[in-house]
């Protein structure tokens, strides 16, 4: 009797395969399955009722879902670009510092060390219409007489949320771009100087193209972060008032855990994941083309 022997490569990979199956694939498949059921947390028997694409059709035809989807894309676009610009500026300035640079780099990372929930509470207080710092400062300086409803007006609330996001995560860009600046070869820059390029031209045509791969990596990481934005928004506005700051994950979180409609929440979640996939694919393509431009191998 001979024992069936598994090929060595499979034996070696087996622990990883088992772990991935247990912690990723099974929950993923279960949640995908539940999105085709009316699964309600408080009525476990509903997990076994197949309703086809009902949840997907419901989400796809719900204007509130698409508004939240659009708002998430808007938030993502504005926050990412702002963070990139500010992070780039910060990194360029810090790279010029000759004394105390380490201290500055550490200080730059402070906002990243705060829990997003606490950042949410902090900014909720700062933008409070009655006792908040911003309104008090504006009123004390005589710039306005009225209490500006920062977290009520749709645009202002989105601005307040973006401020919180930018405050907490700009340093992600700054650190990655700073790493790029440190790796920047000096020869092309010196050649540009010899050729008579202005500082702006050197930056635009030498430094920036070299930094682009780093920027796209930071963009890809942060796009996933912002696309699943939940904690800061949940604390500051919880998607309200009147759905004015509703993002995909505040909507999905409420549907799944407060309303207990997990089947429907999962269906919305799967549609939302498309957004993250689209952004990731986009940034990786950009990353590859930036690397090609620099003559790096794919």
């Amino acid at each position: 009797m001979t024992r069936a022997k598994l090929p060595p490569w499979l034996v070696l990979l087996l622990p990883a395969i088992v772990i991935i199956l247990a912690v990723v694939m099974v929950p993923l498949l279960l949640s995908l399955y539940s999105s085709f059921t009316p699964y309600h947390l408080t009525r476990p028997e509903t997990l076994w009722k197949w309703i086809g694409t009902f949840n997907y059709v419901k989400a796809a035809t719900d204007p509130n879902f698409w508004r939240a989807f659009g708002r998430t894309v808007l938030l993502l676009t504005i926050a990412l670009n702002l963070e990139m610009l500010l992070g780039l500026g910060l990194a360029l300035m810090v790279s010029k510092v000759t004394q105390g640079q380490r201290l500055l780099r550490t200080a730059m990372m402070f906002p990243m060390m705060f829990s997003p929930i606490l950042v949410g509470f902090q900014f909720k207080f700062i933008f409070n219409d009655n006792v908040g710092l911003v309104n008090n400062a504006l009123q004390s300086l005589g710039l306005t007489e009225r209490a500006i409803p920062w977290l009520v007006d749709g645009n202002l609330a989105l601005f307040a949320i973006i401020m919180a996001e930018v405050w907490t995560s700009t340093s992600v860009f700054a650190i990655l771009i700073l790493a790029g600046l440190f790796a920047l070869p000096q020869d092309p820059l010196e050649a540009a100087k010899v050729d008579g390029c202005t500082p702006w031209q050197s930056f635009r045509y030498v430094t920036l193209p070299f930094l682009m791969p780093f920027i796209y990596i930071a963009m890809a990481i942060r796009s996933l972060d912002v696309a699943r934005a939940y904690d800061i928004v949940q604390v500051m506005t919880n998607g309200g008032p009147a759905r004015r700051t509703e993002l995909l994950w505040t909507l999905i979180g409420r549907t799944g855990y407060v309303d207990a409609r997990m089947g429907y929440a999962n269906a919305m979640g799967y549609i939302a994941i498309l957004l993250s996939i689209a952004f990731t694919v986009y940034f990786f393509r950009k990353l590859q083309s930036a690397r090609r431009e620099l003559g790096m191998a794919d």
Partner: protein
Amino acid sequence: MKGPMAGSVLALLAGFGFATAALADGEFAGVTVEAKLIGGQQYEALYARIADWEKATGAKVKIISQKNHFELDKEYKADIAAGTTNWCVGSNHSSFASQYPSLYTDLAPLLPAETVAGFVPANIKAATIEGKLVMLPRAQFDVSALYYQKSLYTDPAKAEAFKAKFGYDLAPPETWDQFRDQAMFFAAPPNFYGTQYAGKDEAINGRFYELVVANGGKMFNDDWTPAFNSDAGKQALQWFVDLYKAGAVPPGTTNYLWDDLGNGFASGTVALNLDWPGWSGFFNDPASSKLAGNVGVAPAPQGSAGVRTGWSGFHGFSVTENCATKEAAASLVDFLTNEDSQKLESAAGPLPSRTAVWDHVIAEAKSDPYKSEVLAAFQETAKTAFPVPPTPYWIESGNLIFPELQAAILGDKTVDQALEDASDAVEELMRENGVI
């Protein structure tokens, strides 16, 4: 096992009288009761008594979770989904209870009739869902009454100006229309507001619900189709809209919850405030409130149908259906809601849910005019108080309704449009779940 054990406990209960019935020495020796309790400083005094129950019965209580009710609610739902419901005692709330029809057991067979008879009948009625007594109410009965700044009503210049404008005497409002007039009259934004209201989540739904009832309407028809898109509903929502448009409430009120309201009133920048009994001490304490000594309390005003608002709720303790030691768990629940426990909790301000304890707190407050005023106002309001509609979809339908109420308040939609959209959404929810 349930039958004989329950029988022996009942015999014991009958023998010893209701309050200390189950506390026979060592009755539950070796038993460990796992509990999920609402957390918060104000609840700790009662939990300190658990040691006495452990000493008397020989059982142990293991608190496995302590969170606020919103977090507990999510945890219970996850427990039901995962089938991990063999812990025994859970904090419950009348506004949430109907969502967990299968989680909790009927306490009536586990307790003597005298125990249940000691509670205010309306509370027991609200704690009974589909014929099951799912919880025993603790001394955390909540209904809202009107807090106001007394000095505003003793200023002759204000009284004269008010009468000239509205044609009737300035006195604490007895109707919600008078309340609106006065809130607009007192408002001087951005430093002083006529009133404020909780503007999101279940909080604004509850306020809307009680105004609908006070105006003679209801949230649901008997067949659970939505009924709030009615004249009474429109009048109720218009009240919120008018106050917001007039600038009589802080502009951020649609983001406010209870703490914002309590702190706002205590800061002295709000004239009228419909709020819960738990705040009464805070408002009149010089350490926490600028209004200490200047707080008046009146029963909740009446709506256009002559009915007082009275959305009420209470905390309670329940025993799970899957608890292996239901008798010990029921004994703990009984202990935590007995007369001594309720006297201890209500001494700090919250309202009791036992008739005898109501009499006790009123007698105790005789020498304190403020406390007497508070109790009189809340007792009057409690007489006509009503719980939330007994549907498992109350919270879920509320999550569909409140964004529409906010949309009307902020001017994104008209009152008619907002109520129509909310009504359609709730009807769809009820249809999807096979209720209608």
